[in-house]
């Protein structure tokens, strides 16, 4: 593996404390990283979209709760 980064490799590849599992779910055009808070609810961590309007949408602000559906658990 060739890395080109200013972060020292021992630091880059060191296993940190394991963070909670994060799910990737799709809502319309937006892919979002959610942290499950219960079986059917998740807290948004980050959204992936190239449309700047998506980041202004109050529903998709980090920390907001979205419903996780059965389909989200299925392998994509």
């Amino acid at each position, binding site marked *: *593996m*060739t*890395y*080109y*980064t*200013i*972060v*020292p*490799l021992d630091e*880059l*590849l*060191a*296993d*940190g*404390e*394991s*963070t909670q599992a994060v799910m990737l779910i799709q*809502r319309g055009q937006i*892919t979002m990283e959610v942290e499950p808070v219960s079986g059917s609810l998740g807290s948004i961590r980050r959204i*992936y*979209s*190239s*449309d*700047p*309007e998506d980041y202004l*949408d*109050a*529903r998709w602000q980090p920390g907001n709760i*979205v*419903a996780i*559906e059965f389909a989200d658990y299925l392998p994509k």
Partner: protein
Amino acid sequence: VDQSLHYGLPYVTWMNLTNQQEEQDESNRSSQQELLQQLGQVQTPPRMESRIHLLSIIGQIEGHTLLPPKNKTTKYEHIIPQLVAIEQNPKIKGVLLILNTVGGDIEAGLAIAEMIRSLTKPSVSLVLGGGHSIGLPIAVAASHSFVADTATITIHPIRLTGLVIGVPQTYEYLDKMQDRVISFIVRNSQVSEAKLRELMFRTGELVRDIGTVLVGREAVSVGLMHELGGLGAAMKRLNELIELKEAAEQPKPPQQPEVTITPQHAAPTPVQPVYQNYPLGYPGYVQPNTIPYTPGWPS
């Protein structure tokens, strides 16, 4: 079915129309139900169509290997499909790249850089905070690059992980990998190869490495970045590039073939009326209640 409700349309047409309406109602109802289930509300706020899309390249650039979860990463598989969508969508006119990255996987970084460079739509990059290592090829890949006054760009040699065999071939391989980065930067910026190599292999600037840290205007003065600036300047430049591209794409009006006027093509000189031939002095001119003057009549 009440035959009187056909509104003069043939029965089959009327039935098709009503069925279509019902289907539409049904699909509206189900999409509203879906919205209610997903979001807890039926109405979604109105959206403004943005002609400029944004890609933020942050943290580590992640390639073939998943980095440990403490790293904040920009993933190749997220960026590349977005770039393809941007290239294909006719409503999107330009891309703004915001970089604040510490570098990362060389293959993924170069892949993203090549994708940005080969976009047919204008792109402007803005380095904020830091655009280190593999972030630099991504920054220079855009049509125009900006660096914030306080942003830093670290240029240093690449590193290899895994089993490294201590033979001269290892060095040659590393050198080849290094050349990929150097040649990409040289091709897409104003810096000379000699200058870039000098910056990359300089000693005494970095504590744990060899290389150089360029702060804001230094990156502009060596020719790596086009301009010093922030968000406003970057957006202004991107809008200018979009307008230039649109102007270039406008169909030009068909040009009239240029005709040189030769004596044969020139309009004939108008024939001057010979006033002596007209007793009134001018053809058709009659002054009321006057005796027209005719030279030599009556004497």
